[in-house]
């Protein structure tokens, strides 16, 4: 018998990720195009346009506006990429094409399916972040020698948001409700209120709350700390890392449970 159950129990989630990546490859043109054009548009309109105004007033935190903005843009691109790459496959897998039910009728387990979708989304996120970083680099947004460290910070944000979205997309079975909820009440507010365009502390305290629960803010703070001498205490640093890590762990744990329940029917 050539069926290899031990191999599946160890590497099942990679086989799921492999299938997901083959699927993504069909869209690679669009994915790559968006990965280049999105940052370019942001950098031209906000980075350079707004930046020239801000820099005329001595920049932010003593660095150019582009340098200040870059880690936030990178993290938000990671979040966008990982969210897209879990949300649509989850809708497709449970509902549109029911592919998860096909996977589930093999030795693969529900937990491996959820983890596989997450891994594939991370693959796409790495690609997007690297491309984004290169574009930022060519726009001169990344000056310091440690500028590349903005990438791991952004990936952490992508992983945190991807894990949470994975659980949420699997939990909410009505996709219209889900897209309204996520689009209007999660993604846009997060982008606007995470200290993306100006330091979070510029905002009234009750709006700062959005930042505290936002992976984008935590990752942006980390990214700024890593790319220029933006001051963070050891405590602040560990809080940012812990929040993001907990989102990953809790998101993946809940996803596995929700997947199991939905696939058991």
């Amino acid at each position: 018998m050539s069926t290899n159950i031990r191999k599946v129990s160890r590497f099942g989630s990679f086989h799921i990720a492999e299938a997901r990546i083959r699927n993504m490859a069909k869209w690679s043109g669009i994915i790559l195009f968006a990965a280049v054009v999105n940052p370019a548009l942001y950098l031209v309109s906000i980075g350079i346009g707004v930046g020239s105004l801000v820099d005329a007033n001595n920049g932010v935190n003593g660095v150019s506006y582009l340098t200040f903005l870059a880690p936030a843009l990178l993290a938000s691109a990671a979040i966008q990429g990982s969210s897209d790459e879990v949300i649509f496959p989850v809708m497709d897998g449970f509902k549109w094409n029911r592919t998860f039910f096909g996977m589930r009728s093999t030795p693969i387990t529900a937990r491996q399916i959820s983890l596989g979708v997450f891994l594939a989304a991370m693959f796409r996120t790495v690609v997007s972040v690297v491309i984004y970083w290169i574009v930022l680099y060519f726009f001169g947004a990344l000056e310091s020698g440690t500028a590349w460290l903005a990438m791991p910070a952004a990936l952490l944000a992508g992983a945190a948001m991807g894990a949470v979205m994975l659980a949420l997309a699997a939990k909410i079975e009505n996709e219209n409700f889900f897209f309204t909820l996520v689009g209007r009440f999660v993604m846009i507010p997060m982008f606007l209120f995470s200290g993306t365009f100006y330091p979070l502390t510029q905002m009234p305290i009750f709006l700062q709350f959005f930042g505290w629960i936002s992976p984008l803010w935590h990752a942006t703070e980390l990214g700024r700390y890593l790319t220029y001498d933006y001051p963070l205490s050891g405590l602040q640093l560990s809080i940012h890392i812990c929040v993001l890590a907990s989102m990953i762990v809790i998101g993946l744990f809940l996803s596995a449970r929700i997947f199991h329940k939905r696939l058991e029917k």
Partner: protein
Amino acid sequence: MTEMLIQARGLTKTYGDFVAVDGIDFDVAKGESFGFLGPNGAGKSTTMRIIGATSVRTSGTLTILGKDPEVNGPQIRAHLGVVPQQDNLDNELTVSENIFIYGRYFGLSSSFINKKIPELLEFAQLEEKKDTKVEALSGGMKRRLTIARSLVSEPDILMLDEPTTGLDPQARHILWDRLFRLKEQGVTLLITTHYMDEAEQLCDRLIVMDRGKIMAEDSPAQLIKTYSTKEVLEVRFGSDRNQEMVEVLRPLADRIEVLPDRILLYATDGEQLLEQITAKGIHPNTSLVRRSSLEDVFLRLTGRSLVE
């Protein structure tokens, strides 16, 4: 003694207060082609999901290939080929890719799968479509691909949930022919259907299910012998006269069933019965003599038709 691949005793599944599968017992032997015949909602798919180790039974015992699906789900699924009622192919991928990724889920090596693909494509008559996206396939082709895909792991048991529902007659016949080949090769088949002709063609033995319960179990021929007469005379008098004719006809036949549009008269010799009727001066608008089928068995057992 023949080897039993599946043994179910008192198998039950409830959803809340609703009993979908109600304490059923059955055995499936190696190499057998075993059917579940019943109308929509009988509990066929639920039973298949439990056997497929993807749904957990509420009570009863179940052994598949000597193992309990509740304990050894992945180990059991490694030996099953599953064709679900609703196709769940990846529409974005091509025909070959679909088989390939599915093989990977069984831990098969790329080289093994790539060797297997041409053989499966030939079996499914999809060689020309191998690089076509699934999206572009017809319903019958998708069904054949789902079957081909389920065979990539060389399963011990192939489970088909309503394999031809929704297909046109030609596509159904192509599919039956493919399934017949598998049967000849000695593959153990588990088939659910609400088509009596499909059950008659493909199953060595079957259980008739209704509302979660088993109504009867035997070979198609034996079921017909036990629960019906050899022949059936179907007569129509027009919807307003059917009812009044029933009382006149009742003494003449072994058994009588009244459907909305026609009356079924059960007899060993249908032609002879028709002669008797006409001799009495009764002239139906139309009449037809045919052999008894599983549809008649179901009608006898439940008082209802298989396909409403």
